[in-house]
């Protein structure tokens, strides 16, 4: 009688899947909070960036609340409009099958994020701590970091851990950049992006929905940056079968079995049934719940997506230099269950969650805890809805709305309460 490991209950496998997606989100948020608390000197007026998100109105501390609110609203409208436009361009390019261009663009933007933004943040840290590093070492290290990062998100044949780590780092860098925006703009922008997500995914004319449907109808992958958790194998088969192993990623342009996406691809459902060779993306299939949610992009089905990142034109305000990192990259976000049963979450979700928590960190750590719990709770609710409805659902709204609500409540009500309790030695 062959020994077989104790079959794992569904609670364990589900729990492990959840943990595997919540961990990187938490790590990203933690890193952004650390960066924000280390690097922010005093108020936000010292570090402001000119970008698409502040093109309509530049916030100053002397404006009245209503002015700030209206200005922030204008900024967010402009930003959402730009994002919508770029998403439609992405849909068009995808429709015209310009996949190579999209992938090259994505690699390029990943390089820019890791190289330039990573370099800038590293310089901030070096200056803050006065690390006596010389430029040769710094450049070599940065170059290595950026190039290996591009390869990690580009190629599917990298260690899973390395790819996941780099995706989290990219999310962290972009999120830190977003926290440099003025305060009101950031909050209104978050809410606006949540609403945009809702519209873009659920409306029949929404760009993300079009993208998903295109991808489904063609059985292709969307080029997008997506974090894919390592799939949980319910029952381990120590011997493995070469022909039927689970392929974690397949790249349409890179996989050996090029034209035939389904061949050579042994799919194991999340129950670990060994001999299941399922076909391609089949929504609603029990083994292949490609439940996707998108923010600014969509990641359906399996496979790795490489998304072009959309960034904004930054320029140095005070010193008037023209160093523009004008990389437009669109972050595609989405959450879904890959065909191999692993949960996939788009990078945009990482970024906006981290922006929210980073902004909360700029006020106080109490808001950080509250917002963190709100976001994780929202993520859980979203996953439940995903399992319930089994169709494309937006990922951002629940978490962002809860997060903003908790931030406001904490800042206005909870903090006063806690401070007074502490001062009077009642608790804490």
């Amino acid at each position, binding site marked *: *009688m*062959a*020994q077989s490991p104790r079959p794992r209950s569904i609670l364990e496998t589900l729990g492990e899947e959840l943990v595997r997606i919540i961990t990187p989100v938490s790590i990203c948020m933690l890193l952004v909070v650390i960066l924000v608390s280390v690097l922010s000197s005093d108020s936000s007026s*010292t*570090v*402001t*960036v000119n970008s698409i998100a502040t093109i309509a109105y530049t916030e100053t501390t002397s404006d009245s609340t209503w002015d700030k609110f209206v200005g922030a609203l204008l900024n967010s409208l402009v930003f959402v409009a730009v994002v919508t436009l770029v998403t439609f361009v992405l849909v068009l390019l995808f429709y015209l099958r310009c996949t190579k261009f999209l992938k090259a663009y994505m690699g390029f933007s990943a390089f820019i994020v890791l190289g330039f933004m990573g*370099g*800038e943040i590293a*310089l*901030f840290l*070096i*200056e803050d701590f*006065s*690390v*006596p*590093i*010389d*430029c*040769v*070492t*710094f450049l*070599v290290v940065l*170059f*290595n*970091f950026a*190039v*290996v990062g591009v*390869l990690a998100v580009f190629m599917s*044949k*990298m*260690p*899973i*851990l*390395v790819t996941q780590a780099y995706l989290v780092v990219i999310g962290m860098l972009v999120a830190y950049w977003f926290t440099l925006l003025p305060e009101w703009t950031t909050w209104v922008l978050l809410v606006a992006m949540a609403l945009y997500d809702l519209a873009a995914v659920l409306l029949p004319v929404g760009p993300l929905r079009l993208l998903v449907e295109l991808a489904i109808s063609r059985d292709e992958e969307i080029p997008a940056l997506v974090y894919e958790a*390592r*799939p949980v*194998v319910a029952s381990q088969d*120590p*011997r*493995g079968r*070469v022909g039927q*192993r*689970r*392929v*974690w990623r397949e790249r349409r342009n890179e996989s*050996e079995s090029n034209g035939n996406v389904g061949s050579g691809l042994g799919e194991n459902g999340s129950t670990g049934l060994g001999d299941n060779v399922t076909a391609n993306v089949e929504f609603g299939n029990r083994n292949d719940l490609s439940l996707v949610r998108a923010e600014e992009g969509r990641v359906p089905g399996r496979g790795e997506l490489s998304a072009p990142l959309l960034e904004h034109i930054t320029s*140095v*305000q*005070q*010193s008037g*230099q023209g*160093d523009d990192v004008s990389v437009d990259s669109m972050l595609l976000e989405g959450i879904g269950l890959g065909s191999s049963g692993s949960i996939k979450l788009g990078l945009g979700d990482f970024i906006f969650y981290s922006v929210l928590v980073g902004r909360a960190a700029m006020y106080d750590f109490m808001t950080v805890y509250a917002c963190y719990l709100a976001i994780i709770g929202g993520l859980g609710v979203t996953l439940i809805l995903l399992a319930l409805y089994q169709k494309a659902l937006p990922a951002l709204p629940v978490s962002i709305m809860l997060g903003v609500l908790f931030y406001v409540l904490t800042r206005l009500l909870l903090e006063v309460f806690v401070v007074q309790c502490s001062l009077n030695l009642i608790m804490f």
Partner: protein
Amino acid sequence: MEATDIQNPNPSPRILLPSSPPPLWPTIDGPLGLSEEESVSYARRFYKFGFALLPLLWAVNCFYFWPALRHSRSFPRIHHYVLRSAVGFAVFTALLSSWALTFGIGGERLFGHVWDELLMYNLADRIGLTGWS
């Protein structure tokens, strides 16, 4: 109870833990990673690209094919490349860190005024990379 793969069927003397079976998959991802044939080509490619001043790629190579590095007899071809990558990474790291430490610890006493010019945050200030900080 039949003997499974858990027991080591290979009686040849190896410097291995007595209970570890010969690995099936050359990559650290196990069944989620590459097959052996693909692994050879990827190991070779990582090794070659690492010469473009990319020791981190060599490190990733070693990390990725860790089973091949440890069990040299199961994957001879991969082991060939991975071993060289490991050596290359070690050498490069030693050189770079010795230079960086010399620079950092030696400071101005050792280098004179060149130290100030090579220092990263001075350079950044001069070029204005972080002009808004």
